[in-house]
């Protein structure tokens, strides 16, 4: 009997990978459902809002093609995250070759800030909150590339420290150090450091 989609949602990654390797698309579909948000959040940090969906699809298709090379040494999620990051870096290299584009700006514009679902009720408090976030955004954008990358993977893509270390092939101690420096630097920019 063919397992249904809800049956497959209970199955562990390793079993789904083995089934997908044998051509079971429904098994791979379950892996997509499980990890597409994570992949999209990672891609969003590298290629921006407009390209994040396309990069996510590319990364997931690449993962399917490369499934037989998945040897289980790392968790499937980590392996997939690395594919997503490499896909985005390829895309960025391609863009660089083709020359800069106006929409390559990866920062959140005024529209993004205006769309914040503010908790504060009164307009004055909302404006203050937006201003604080805008200042934080500016300080985050000014971080050195590696610190910014790790900061975004931790706080926006919401990866664990160990996952970031594995995805970037660095020691977890390096991730901690860079993260600490990033936050300290941002606070200094914001005048929060005594």
């Amino acid at each position, binding site marked *: 009997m063919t397992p249904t989609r809800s049956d497959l949602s209970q199955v562990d990654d390793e079993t789904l990978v083995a089934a997908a390797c044998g051509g079971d*698309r429904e098994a791979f579909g379950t892996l997509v459902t499980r990890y597409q948000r994570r992949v999209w959040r990672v891609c*969003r940090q590298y290629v921006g809002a407009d390209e994040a969906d396309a990069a996510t699809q590319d990364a997931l298709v690449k993962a399917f093609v490369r499934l037989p090379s998945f*040897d289980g040494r790392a968790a499937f999620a980590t392996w997939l995250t690395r594919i997503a990051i490499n896909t985005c870096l390829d895309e960025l290299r391609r863009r660089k070759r083709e020359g800069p584009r106006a929409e390559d700006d990866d920062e959140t514009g005024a529209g993004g800030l205006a769309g914040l679902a503010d908790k504060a009720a009164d307009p004055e408090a909302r404006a203050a909150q*937006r201003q*604080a976030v805008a200042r934080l955004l500016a300080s985050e954008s000014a971080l050195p590339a590696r610190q910014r990358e790790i900061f975004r993977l931790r706080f926006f893509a919401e990866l664990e420290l160990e996952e970031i270390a594995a995805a970037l092939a660095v020691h977890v101690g390096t991730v901690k150090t860079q993260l600490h420096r990033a936050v300290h630097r941002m606070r200094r920019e914001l005048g929060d450091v005594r």
Partner: protein
Amino acid sequence: MTTHLDDNDLSRAMAQLPLEAAAADHLAQCLICRRRVEAFGEQLDGLRRARLGDEPDWEAQRLAVLERLPPGATVVALAPRRRVRLLAAAALILAALGLGALQLSRRQPQPTAPVPVERILAEVNATLDGPVYPGFEALEPIVPDADELQAVINNPTS
């Protein structure tokens, strides 16, 4: 007088990194330090929401991915570790075969018992007396007959 967390520890707490026991204890008890850490966290939440923006339609994305998958099973390529294991096994087999061949080539031929000359001669004679041994028939007579010899003697220039 209360000593609050220093800037390094505050940054560490804001980065959600583990603190040393004393700093962690202080943070658990000090409202002022905790409020500073929480305020940074709230700003970070706002930035995250602003940065992520609208999420895509997940089901549509899932279907799009499945549609783009190449047909059939994925190409079965051996995983690197399996490939190395197979290569190692093949190398072992080759090494074993090579050693075996070396041993064989070094092995001396076994001495055989001498055969009496009389027996050899008897076998040769029997062969010669028998029918022509296949493969040894002369294609042309090697010695010319008497008429031919005489003709050559009479006319040496022919």
